[in-house]
């Protein structure tokens, strides 16, 4: 499975092909993350996403394995952009399918929290006033911590 997409990511096309390979699953949840113009550092005009040649895909595969071990999923899909993105371009697409909706919702939520906080990507925002590398927000870590049994918070945020 190719997780990393250098060209445009098309959520509707991804959903259409995902529907064809989920067997008798009755529930599909998708998440699409898009580049927002309004960011903490101003009006974003473009975004650059860098991945690691080995660790990025390895980490996503581990998160998928964890999700399948935790919830009875019929199928799942993770796609993540790398390279240059424009405003409102889809960055990430996650789809999960299960017999019943609860598992599909929880697994999609879990995978997105992984992508937002632990996945190996570096993100640079380009605004009118310059460029800035973006690191995860505290709210992202708080979301991710919901899935852990401990209350550990990331030690790299203030």
């Amino acid at each position: 499975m190719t997780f990393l997409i250098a060209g445009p990511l098309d959520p509707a096309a991804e959903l259409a092909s995902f529907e064809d390979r989920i067997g008798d699953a009755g529930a599909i949840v998708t998440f699409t993350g898009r580049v927002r113009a309004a960011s903490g550092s101003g009006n974003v005009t473009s975004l650059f996403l860098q991945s690691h040649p080995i660790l990025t895909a390895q980490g996503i595969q581990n998160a998928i394995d964890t999700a399948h071990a935790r919830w009875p999923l019929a199928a799942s899909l993770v796609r993540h952009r790398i390279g240059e993105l424009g405003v409102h371009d889809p960055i990430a697409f996650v789809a999960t399918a299960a017999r019943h909706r609860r598992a599909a919702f929880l697994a999609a939520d879990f995978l997105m929290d992984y992508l937002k906080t632990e996945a190996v990507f570096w993100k640079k925002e380009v605004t009118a006033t310059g460029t800035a590398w973006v690191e995860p927000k505290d709210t992202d870590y708080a979301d991710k911590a919901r899935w852990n049994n401990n209350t550990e918070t990331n030690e790299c945020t203030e």
Partner: protein
Amino acid sequence: MAKLCYFGRLTDVTGTAEEVVGLPPHVSDTGSLVSWLETGRGWTGLLSDRCVRIVVNNEIQDHDIDIRDTDEIGFLPPVGGG
């Protein structure tokens, strides 16, 4: 020769994403590599930042580890995707 890879915001300082260097004899582990680079290049605190993870041959290392002149060593600042 060792291959050094810098990711994310580190490249703003290093000016390059990859370089191939010969390691001097006293640079035998990740700790001494970080000191050697920070001192020699004037990158004070850049790589020894506790939030920068060190990867040797694609394995994340939480502690100092011996390195050899043929290894690939990556420096990873905090990540943020989605």
